[in-house]
């Protein structure tokens, strides 16, 4: 017994006991809280999807309730609408098929994209019409760009630039309004944050490309292709 006592374990028995107890404690806390955390993450995405597809103003000030895959929006004016959002298996970090009401017509797709921005990872959602021909909007989930410069990509005026841009050719970044007006695919870069704007466009292009060939692949065996 004393060989064990003054052996390595003997001296550090307090550490072993603490490690064991804390391991159990942490696992218990994790099990109790992780469903709530998943729920939070999922809720944040679910709350943004309607805004992405129906346009910002439609959901302005609306109260959104989420039950599983059914999202009901009660806008201040006009009648409530219900959307079902189903997560599709896809190579993008996440792809959701959004359709009207319980089993209505497909309204559009929302895909999630992640890549290295200027300072750190940029994680965003891209909304596409049902036939993936047009971008209906983007929403930045999280980013660590330089405050007051790069983090302009979160503001609604920058996001609104992406609405309605066709997706048949990749987006480009115009340094200023004139350059941006030249081609329908050009976005006017944020002043002083061209790198961030370019990375956002890069992520949107990659995600849209992946979604298009995946959806194009699915649509063949589905019904008509517009």
């Amino acid at each position, binding site marked *: 017994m004393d060989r064990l006592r003054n*052996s*390595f*374990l003997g*001296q*550090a028995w307090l*550490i*072993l006991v603490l*490690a*064991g*107890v*804390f*391991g*159990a404690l*942490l*696992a*218990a806390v*994790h*099990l109790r809280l992780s469903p709530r955390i998943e729920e939070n993450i999922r809720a944040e995405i679910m709350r943004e999807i309607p805004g992405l597809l129906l346009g910002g103003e439609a959901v302005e000030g609306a109260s959104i309730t989420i039950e599983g895959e059914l999202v009901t929006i009660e806008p201040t004016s006009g009648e409530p609408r219900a959307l079902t959002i189903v997560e599709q298996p896809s190579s993008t970090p996440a792809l959701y098929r959004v359709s009207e009401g319980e089993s209505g017509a497909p309204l559009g797709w929302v895909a999630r994209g992640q890549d290295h921005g200027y300072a750190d990872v940029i994680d965003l959602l891209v909304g596409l019409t049902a036939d993936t021909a047009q971008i209906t909007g983007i929403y930045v989930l999280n980013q660590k760009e330089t405050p007051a410069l790069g983090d302009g990509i979160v503001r609604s005026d920058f996001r609104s630039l992406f609405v309605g841009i066709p997706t048949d050719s990749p987006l480009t970044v115009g340094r200023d309004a004139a350059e941006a007006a030249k081609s329908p695919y050009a976005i006017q870069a944020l002043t002083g944050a061209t790198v961030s704007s370019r990375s956002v466009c890069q992520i949107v292009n990659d995600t849209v490309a992946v979604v298009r060939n995946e959806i194009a692949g699915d649509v063949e065996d589905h019904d008509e292709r517009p």
Partner: protein
Amino acid sequence: MTFLVILLASSTLLLLAVFMSFVLGWANKAFYVEVDPRVEQIDAVLPGANCAGCGYIGCTDYAEAVVNEGASVALCAPGGESCAEAVAEIMGVEVEETWPYRAVVHCGATLPQRLGVNDYRGERTCTAANLVAGYQGCVYGCLGLGDCVEACTFDAMKMIWGLVQIDYEKCTGCGACVETCPRGIISRIPFKAERVLVVSCSNEDFGNDVRKVCTVGCIGCGACAKLSELFTMDANLPTLDYEGAAVEEGDFEKSMEKCPMESLLYVGKPSAEDLAATIDEELPGRVEPDFETTVDQAEWRG
């Protein structure tokens, strides 16, 4: 299901802890560096000011030197007697006679006694003033800007009338001032008695060159050396060998009278007459700064 996950988590951590304690235990054995326990004991006894007065980088360094290289047990100036005895007793060595080392300034000229002092508007530090030619007549003596006062951690130095004065109750001989003085006119000498004679000048010129720049500088005439063999003239300056000869017994009365420039001073405990002279003076409550005498620290750029 949940019970299994909790078990898995705590067992992973337990496994990691066991693995780590084994690795550390093995490393403890494999990398064991036998440290002489006496080094720690001595280190605990030393004051720990890391003042390098003993000539080593820090107290732990000195402790190792005492144990491994047999350095003398009494080099710790701030520690003084008590520390030397404690270290000796740890080492099992009896303490040979030691004297406290103290700092001494080899310049005796206050501001009015220096000649050719110019109006210096540069940085108020000795290191900076030392770079400027023509700061004052004498190129060897004290600049009076207080780098040593700044460096002294025992608050034993005061700048009075442009010349640094050392308060021997507080001075521990740590040697910080010796290093910082850009002109190197402060030295550490063993005080074998309460009052020790010091040559209060480091001007190596001769005769009139000294008189042109200072009214109390030693002109190197050698009168003191003729009268007492303890002095040895070197570069027009009498030097005393404090380590060797019994400097404290030598009677320097005659030499001090003969010295034309009164560059020989007794430093240390104030003598009986000095104390008597100032005993009845009333210490002023608040010292009002009169601008003629004090070198004002505040920088005023005209």
